[in-house]
């Protein structure tokens, strides 16, 4: 029987991940405050809420299980159409119940297609997931009697939530609804991720061979998390449908899946908040870009993606903003802007070297500040 102190230490270390950090409390308090502080922006905040949930669902399979998916929109879209259809044909009137059922529908699709994702290389997974999303889109396109086809599903009326809260055009009720769903599902996801199951996922992602060698059924775990993530994506899609009373084919598009990857590359993967933080950042960027260049903002999103991959989250963002600023100020054409990008690429080594030196200086500064602070604290009696 090992000494109690050691056991206590071990228990504490194991439980470290599950403990709530101060920043987490701050985040959710800020989210709650936004309900009261920004009443005029509830519509865009609602978009951020379901996008955050969608991104969270992708993080579950990408950041925790290591599955690269280009077609997560398949589950999002199915949930969206399911919720819209349930409301339109008055099969399930109460939105929360419809939400749950839509999520289940997406989960079923996730479960059915999970087996395809287990085998093969990264490219195979990309292909399969993309293919499934496109098949879903094609199905929706080919049954316009049910889905409204290319025009989208019209005439959807959403009943009051829980029988009492009617969705309003300013989006107040909608935002509180989406935020609540996001919070509840986040708590659940957090529970799962900090559990033995979640730990085994991280093991599977890091070393599937060794995982199997200690008795973990790798495929079963991947199927489980894929289905779970599909449920979350379906719920996110349902929230979109319910708050906009509309469903259209672009819920399945490659652009949507790509936007989602951008959200996660901005926010980071593998720590659950990546999708949430990334969604906020992404919406702000998209909003800002749309004001400057309403028609071709996709160009700047593309540029941002390229620079983020080349220079990482912080520097990539800074350089992208710089290029954008310069292009806007000098009224450069897309062609000239592309030349700037090529020039950046040509000088990559120099820029990288410069940035690495900057990194070192910053680290030095932080270290210096820390030791100065420690010295200051020691001087006090």
């Amino acid at each position: 029987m090992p000494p109690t102190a050691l056991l206590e230490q071990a228990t504490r270390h194991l439980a470290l991940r599950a403990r709530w950090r101060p920043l987490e409390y701050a985040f959710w308090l800020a989210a709650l405050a936004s309900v009261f502080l920004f009443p005029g922006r509830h519509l865009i905040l609602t978009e951020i809420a379901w996008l955050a949930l969608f991104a969270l669902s992708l993080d579950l399979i990408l950041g925790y299980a290591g599955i690269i998916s280009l077609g997560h929109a398949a589950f999002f879209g199915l949930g969206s159409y399911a919720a819209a259809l349930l409301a339109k044909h008055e099969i399930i009137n109460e939105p929360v119940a419809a939400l749950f059922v839509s999520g289940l529908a997406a989960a079923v699709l996730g479960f059915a297609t999970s087996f395809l994702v287990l085998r093969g290389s990264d490219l195979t997974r990309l292909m399969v997931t993309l293919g499934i999303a496109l098949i879903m889109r094609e199905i929706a396109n080919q049954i316009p009697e049910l889905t409204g086809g290319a025009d989208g599903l019209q005439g959807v009326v959403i009943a009051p939530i829980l029988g009492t809260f009617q969705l309003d055009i300013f989006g107040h009720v909608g935002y509180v609804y989406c935020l609540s769903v996001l919070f509840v599902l986040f708590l659940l996801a957090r529970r799962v991720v900090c559990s033995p199951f979640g730990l085994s996922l991280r093991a599977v992602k890091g070393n599937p061979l060794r995982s199997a060698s200690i008795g973990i059924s790798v495929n079963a775990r991947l199927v489980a998390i894929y289905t779970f993530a599909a449920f979350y994506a379906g719920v996110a899609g349902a929230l979109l449908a319910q708050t906009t009373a509309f469903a259209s084919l672009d819920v399945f598009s490659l652009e949507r899946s790509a936007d989602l990857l951008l959200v996660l590359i901005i926010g980071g993967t593998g720590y659950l908040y990546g999708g949430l933080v990334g969604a906020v950042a992404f919406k702000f960027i998209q909003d800002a870009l749309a004001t400057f260049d309403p028609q071709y903002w996709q160009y700047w999103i593309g540029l941002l993606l390229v620079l983020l991959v080349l220079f990482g989250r912080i520097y990539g963002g800074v350089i992208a903003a710089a290029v954008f600023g310069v292009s806007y100020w000098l009224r450069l054409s897309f062609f000239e802007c592309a030349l700037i990008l090529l020039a950046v690429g040509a000088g990559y080594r120099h820029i990288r070297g410069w940035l690495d030196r900057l990194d070192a200086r910053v680290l030095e500064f932080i270290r210096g500040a820390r030791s100065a602070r420690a010295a200051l604290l020691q001087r006090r009696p």
Partner: protein
Amino acid sequence: MPAALETVDLQKHFGGIAAVAGVSFKVERGARHALIGPNGAGKTTVINLLTGVLRPSAGRILLAGEDITLVEPHKRVRRGLARTFQINQLFLDLTPLESVGLAIAERMGAGAQWWRPVGTHASVVEEIVEILARFHLTDVMHERTGNLPYGKQRLLEIALAIACRPRVLLLDEPAAGVPEDERHEILATVAALPADVTVLLIEHDMDIVFSFADRISVLVNGALFVDGAPEQVASDPRVKAVYLGESLDA
């Protein structure tokens, strides 16, 4: 009483090459059995076949009398067959505490639990710490595995396999790559393994083989060359010839 581990005419072909050409041997319960042979003889292939990473082209594998030839790798672990890898296969981003905890939780059937946070099972935590203590890893138990020195990583490699409480343990060159001054720790650990655990050891280092094994099988070009007690194998002139230049009694 069936042998702890037995292969019957085990074969593995890659295209036209027979990596394992009809290997039949028995490992008795509680034995300390060594599998040796020159490089490329097929030793790791045999281990991969035994654990299910590779599917045999022909032949059968029996674990305590039960046919496990077609059983999936992770299920073989549940039935009591564990292994270590020649090149460390660890969870680099996890701590030793978490890694061993995973193995124990899996063994107890609690590995897929998604509701309770990690670390709330007192009995699991106790067992983790016990095992880590046995392998001298308690001082680094909450460090990221990737940051540990190689010797400690090697110990963790074995600890992970032991955490599965196997009936049969396959050790693939446990001392490989370990610096001279850290070797004795590994060897002491291997020697201190519980007596009821059957051990099949692959090794190149003859000192380890002859101090540890009570039975030795020699694998050459995918076939069993010699199979017997250490003195028998040591004195066999054919074995010396096969290990050209390598002295067996140094």
